[in-house]
């Protein structure tokens, strides 16, 4: 077995938390059950990984198997990586029958014809997700297995999710290979990024519960109902106001759980508005400013602002539109020039 492959497998196993090693090796399926039984999972991880490497040596593992183990690791811990979303456009209306073998062949072909030194590995999952791992090299250097790019593609959709630890210089090539293989004619990066891959999928596949303008008799019902607090001796003076806030908030965010995003970024290129006598800025130039909201779960925290009394309802549409517009990066320019990707600040 190649020394570099052995080292790569050893380091991959070291990344896995001790309790998960057995499950992940089983998912990998490269070592037999008998071999797995010989492993002592109670020793220090260093020794476990050494033992695994020895077993892989017995089975003559090659780079391909090592790459599959890496995909399994990253699929399991997908939320450790930062994912970007790309949208593809079709020129015609016909949806070709998707052939996975053709797809793989075309991806490999395109990448290899441009770059001799690449490692390309595929793994399919039950939810129709195809994971592609690409390790990049140069015409003179072998691929760097420690900085691969990962692509997740659901075949019946025009969306691709990409996470890259390599330099962005390889992205155009990757994008090209994808549109050639999928028969689309264009691909563009969306202004949507997050660590939570499933939430990104929820947003673009519209799988989260969206708010609908329903005129249901909810407000009327609540007036007849006793206050929800356990003790009837507590009187909420501002109950109607609280209900109004709750209703407007629900209209803006919907009643289901929100997709998980960690930040929203607003790039302002607007003019600084001040008292003309103050003369703060002599030049009539846009005031460049970046506003970034971060949170472990941004949309849920935005949803809880108004009920907590920290913001007025309705919240700014710039915040509430994030899942509908499928973007968390915005450019805000002046009213006069309306650009397609930015819109007017309220």
């Amino acid at each position, binding site marked *: 077995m190649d020394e570099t492959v052995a080292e790569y497998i050893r380091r991959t196993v070291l990344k896995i938390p001790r309790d998960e090693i057995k499950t992940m090796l089983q998912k990998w399926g490269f070592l037999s059950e008998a071999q797995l039984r010989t492993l002592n999972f109670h020793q220090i991880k260093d020794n476990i990984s050494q033992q695994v490497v020895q077993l892989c040596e017995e089975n003559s593992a090659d780079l391909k198997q090592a790459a599959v183990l890496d995909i399994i690791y990253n699929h399991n811990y997908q939320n450790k990586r930062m994912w970007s979303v790309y949208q593809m456009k079709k020129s015609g209306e016909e949806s070709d029958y998707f052939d996975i073998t053709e797809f793989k062949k075309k991806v490999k072909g395109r990448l290899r014809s441009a770059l001799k030194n690449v490692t390309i590995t595929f793994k399919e999952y039950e939810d129709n997700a195809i994971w592609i791992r690409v390790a990049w090299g140069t015409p003179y250097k072998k691929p760097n297995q420690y900085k691969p790019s990962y692509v997740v593609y659901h075949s019946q959709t025009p969306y691709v999710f990409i996470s890259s630890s390599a330099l962005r210089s390889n992205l155009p090539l990757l994008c090209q290979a994808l549109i050639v293989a999928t028969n689309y004619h264009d691909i563009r990066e969306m202004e949507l990024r997050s660590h939570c891959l499933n939430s990104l999928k929820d947003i673009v596949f519209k799988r989260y519960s969206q708010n609908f303008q329903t005129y249901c008799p909810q407000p009327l019902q609540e007036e007849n109902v006793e206050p929800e607090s356990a003790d009837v001796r*507590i*009187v*909420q*003076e*501002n109950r*109607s*106001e609280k209900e109004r806030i709750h209703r407007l908030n629900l209209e803006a965010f919907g009643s289901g759980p929100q997709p998980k995003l960690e930040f929203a970024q607003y790039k302002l290129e607007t003019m600084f508005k001040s008292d003309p006598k103050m003369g703060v800025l002599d030049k009539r130039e846009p005031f460049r400013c970046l506003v970034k909201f971060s949170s472990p779960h941004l949309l849920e925290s935005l949803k809880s602002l108004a009920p907590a009394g*920290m913001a007025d309802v309705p919240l700014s549409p710039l915040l509430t539109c994030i899942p509908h517009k499928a973007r968390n990066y915005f450019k805000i320019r002046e009213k006069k020039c309306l650009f397609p990707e930015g819109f007017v600040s309220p």
Partner: protein
Amino acid sequence: HLATSLPLPSERDHLRPRMDLIVFMIDIKSKYSLKNVEASLAHVDASFFLGKVCFLVTGVGRVNACSIETNAVCKLGEAYCSPVLFCELELEGIRAATAQRLLRMLQICAGHIPGVSALSFVSLMRNSDDD
């Protein structure tokens, strides 16, 4: 009766009993909370400040998250001649003790303790503060 600010909504005026004690809750982590209380104080009838108003500062356990200076709150208490209590609602023991203190004050303000009026009680508390 719980309210987020004063004045109270007028539509429920006819349903409201006599108010014996007003406790203004200030979250030490929120400057907005102090501003809100200061604005609400303007809507309180002067007679309440004869011992029927109290300031309760919450969240004092989290020293790193303080946004308001205790000095500012104490000055507020002095300005309105009303006692300031400090507590940490996240700790059950302190929460229970604070509730008992407020209940005691309420009993006095409602006139349930013979021989002690709200005004005499509050001047008692002020004297101990000045020590």
